[in-house]
């Protein structure tokens, strides 16, 4: 099969899965509205929480209030995607292994990694990335950042951020098949994204160094710096490179786990 057709097929499959899961979840409209209300509440909560620090200072190690709003917006976007995509699928995978559904999925003619990582959606958080975008735009406008190449570098590093999150997800999926412990892995994902609520500079060394090596810095700090036009050019190469390596490593880990997997239904 030729490469582009295979990609197109996979996109189509995922879209079909999403249409089904969205249709199923929209039967519970009150749930959706409650989720949306809660998301808006947490955004206001975060913005008010940040304001407490700025009673005493105009900027935190070079980050002003509007600039931190950009980071908060990115946090809500990434965290929303974690809740909408990563959480429901990671919850399912332990069930797939326990009930033997994974054996069935393996026989399908599509890539299993794609099926298990992107099959489900949690509709309650689906609008969070949109809400996050509001903070990103507001923060950007208020911060007097230049408009130019930075928008392009932002898009690059934003894509990098989402792919890094996906690599983490695949790695957790592989661990879930191996360990069959969903709750703890959810906590790891939650913790990793929660660290990205603030730019890594605010943690200062030695934690800043640790979060740069364990690439939490990719999730919100780098895209925010890119948008504000103060990303050191070195990250333009290093960010995507680290993400690419993470994607390859997570893919290899997934394949390795599948090779060791002996099936549950047989």
């Amino acid at each position, binding site marked *: 099969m030729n490469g582009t057709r295979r990609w197109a097929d996979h996109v189509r499959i995922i879209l079909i899965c999403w249409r089904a899961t969205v249709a199923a979840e929209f039967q519970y409209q*009150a749930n959706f509205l*409650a*989720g949306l*209300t*809660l998301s808006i*509440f*947490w955004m206001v*909560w975060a913005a*008010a*929480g940040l304001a*407490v*620090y700025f*009673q*005493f*200072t*105009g*900027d*935190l*190690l070079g980050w002003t209030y509007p600039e931190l709003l950009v980071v908060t917006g990115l946090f809500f976007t990434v965290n929303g995607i974690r809740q909408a995509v990563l959480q429901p699928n990671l919850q399912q995978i332990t069930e797939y292994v326990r009930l033997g559904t994974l054996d069935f999925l393996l026989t399908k003619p599509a890539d299993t990694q794609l099926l298990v990582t992107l099959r489900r959606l949690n509709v309650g958080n689906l609008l969070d990335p949109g809400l996050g975008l509001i903070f990103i735009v507001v923060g950007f406008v208020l911060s007097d950042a230049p408009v130019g190449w930075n928008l392009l570098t932002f898009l690059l590093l934003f894509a990098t951020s989402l792919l890094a999150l996906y690599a983490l997800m695949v790695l957790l999926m592989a661990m879930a098949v191996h*360990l069959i*412990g969903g*709750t*703890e892995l959810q*906590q*790891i994902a939650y*913790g990793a994204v*929660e*660290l990205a*609520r*603030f730019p890594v500079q*605010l*943690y*200062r060394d030695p*934690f800043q160094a640790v979060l740069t090596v364990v690439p939490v810095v990719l999730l919100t700090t780098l895209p925010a710096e890119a948008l504000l036009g103060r990303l050191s050019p070195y990250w333009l190469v290093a960010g995507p490179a680290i993400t690419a390596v993470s994607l390859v490593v997570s893919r290899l880990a997934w394949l390795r786990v599948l090779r060791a997997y002996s099936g549950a239904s047989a």
Partner: protein
Amino acid sequence: MAETVASIAALTRAAATTATAYRGRLLAGLLTTFFPLLLMAVWLTVVATSGPPRGWTAPDFISYYAAASLLWHLSGQNVIWQWDEDIRGGDFSIRLLRPVHPFWQYAANDLGQRLVMLGLAAPVFVAATLVLPQLGYHLTAVRLLATVVAVLLAYAVSITMASLVALLGFWSTQTTNLWMLWWGLGSFASGWIAPLEVMPGWLRSTAEWLPFRTTMGFPVELMTGRLSAAETAFGFAVGLGWLALFTVLYLVVWKPGVRRHQAVGG
């Protein structure tokens, strides 16, 4: 009465034993200890960039948040997730058949887990106070005793408050969302977002009358030696007042609630 006490003790022991069986879950729970320390990191940045806010130095913040991270484990709010799940899933009917009131079943279950968690976290905390010069509590015997009582009061208020909100599950299926709104608003008045002393004056003077401070800020402030005898007495009075009010409300709401309860599943 004696039988109830014996049952509660047995349930607590059983929950503690179960908790030690799931080591991964225990570890994930312990990892959440670090969340208050993230907020601490930001305050240390504030101190470093623009001097101690309202006289709070770096050691003040470190002592405050170290104690807060320990107390976080006693927040008691986990019971609401259990109530919610049981009422919706039908397991609540089984709980009603048991000779001990469900409140005590959930409370004992939570207490058992908390004791295991504290058993692991407290020695680390004590060791840290001995090693780190920044952690100075200068506890007198009287203050230590008062702190222990304040911590018990914090747990009692917090678990009664959560159970009261859980009772609304007889009328609505959205109690966990409601609780998150309640907790989110309360986190500004409890000392969780920031110590109340660095909050705006109007918020601080309101928070002193609210139940949230009892659950976190009050015991921590007491332990760090920031309260005079009069302030301590006032804090205890407010806490006991809320405990009494929540208990009465719980008893009032319980009767019509349980009558409304329609058993699901079984």
